């Protein structure tokens, strides 16, 4: 008898879920919205600024080619290397050496952003970096300098209803 009562209460609890909204969302018709601008770092106070850690963005006019980001990543995943761009003449970067990032190795930890003292390397919200071959995952400095595309509409984010959770 207790068996039947417990079974009935579990059936009722399961049936309650049928009338609530579903939690999943339909990617790629709907994409997740991430607020903010990406992870940044302030070298004067030594504290990072809150944000999502996705693809990097490089400000070519600020980068001096000091290779501190390369040295930090040597112990983590060796994803950054310096590359010589002869036709970019920037006053602070005499040797014209800029970082290139291999996204097949990067673990998105953000320590390279923490290592840069000149605010030249930040991270953005973009996380859709799939490709068909490995060579196109190696982003040259010019490719890293392009700001990220705006996420195509419609975007959803997590919303809380009365007793359910849904993406809307």
């Amino acid at each position, binding site marked *: 008898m207790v068996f039947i009562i417990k079974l009935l209460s*579990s*059936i009722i609890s*399961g049936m309650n*879920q049928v009338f609530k909204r579903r939690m*999943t969302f339909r990617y790629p018709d709907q994409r997740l919205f991430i607020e903010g601008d990406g992870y940044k770092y302030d070298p004067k106070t030594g504290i990072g600024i809150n944000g999502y850690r996705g693809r990097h963005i490089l400000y070519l006019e600020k980068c001096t080619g000091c290779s501190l980001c390369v040295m930090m990543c040597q112990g983590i995943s060796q994803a950054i290397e310096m590359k010589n761009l002869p036709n970019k003449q920037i006053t602070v970067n005499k040797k014209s050496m800029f970082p290139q990032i291999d996204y097949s190795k990067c673990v998105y930890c953000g320590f390279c952003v923490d290592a840069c003292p000149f605010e030249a390397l930040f991270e953005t919200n973009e996380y859709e970096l799939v490709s068909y071959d490995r060579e196109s995952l190696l982003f040259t400095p010019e490719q890293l300098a392009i700001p990220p595309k705006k996420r195509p509409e419609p975007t959803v984010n997590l919303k809380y209803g009365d007793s359910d959770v849904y993406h809307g």
Partner: protein
Amino acid sequence: MSKIQTFSSFVKRLIIIIVGLLITLTLLFSLLAYFVPSVKELQDILLSSFGNPSLMLNYLDQKGLGLNSLFFKVVVFPGFTWAALIAAEIIWFERKFLAKMQMRVGPLYAGKIAGLLQPIADVIKLVFKEIIAPSSSDKWFFLSIPIIITSIAAALLAVLPVSEGWIIMRSDVSVLIIFALVGFVPIAVLLGGWASNSKYPFIGALRGLHQMIAFEIPMLISTLGVVLLTGTLDLVNIVYAQSNIWFILLMPIGAFVFFTCMIIELERIPFDLPEAESEIASGYLTEYTSMAFGNLQLGVYIRFYAMAGVFTTMFLGGWYGPQILPNGFEIANQVIWFTIKTLLVMILAIVLRGVNPRVRIDLLLRMGWSSLLILSFVNLFLVILILQTELSQIFGV
């Protein structure tokens, strides 16, 4: 077939192909010759039926294919096509309903509205795959088991009374026919596992055998309660006897025992030990691929519909229900009520699937041989009590 290595095997293959061709062509031509006596007559009928469709119906009646013939009943309604359509849509409904219970969506893209054509997409995918039989198995036997299981399931449909006139075969011993067919399924499952000649299917088939045999007895005894109350073995008379009150109100314990045994015989979750466990790959279904697997699944779901129909007939009052269609459509009304009740029984089985984990084999067998057996005997004594006292007059049985 073996590879062509000698001239004699080549000749053997050639003879098989020629004989096969001859048989097929003969059958085809004789069929055409029966239905098409002359091209001119067929042309006349087709032309005139545009203005007057009943001429076409008369022509088909003459040939024995009309709306009241056995051919129509077996093939279209309430026979195989009807059951196959319901089986396909129950697969869709089960996936959608379980998905709704689990915070997600289910099939969505096949078919314009909500993924209704998903089962058909699955069947088309299965047709294009390759049928593989393991080399150490007994090949023809192995491939004929799905056909046997589906045929048994379809044969169960022959005695199901969908409404007053629409039964394929009405006989005096329908209940015995049902239990004979249900009792054959464990043997077919065991043969399927044995013919695969592999370790995991054999373990799964043995478990299926234990499970199905253990639970036929409570099912029989609860059916015995119904048979005692009405005094006949004919399903149509059992429905007639429920015109005043449904049997589920007279014998709730019996209905509960029958429903539980029904789910166990069908090997649905939470009792799907022979099929999909996390330790015996897929049980006796492991070695079946493409259309053999599709055939097996079709057989399982048609059997689900047939057993739910038997439950409706015996406990839920068959085709009786208030008249919701205008007068003159009684038969359609009966068909609609029968279908609605069967679908409700199937939905209850699906809800139980979503809520429970799987049972262990020793707990299952202990429950079958002790608790359910005792409950079914209690039900039997209650039925005898109803018969012997005045209660049967009160209920109008």
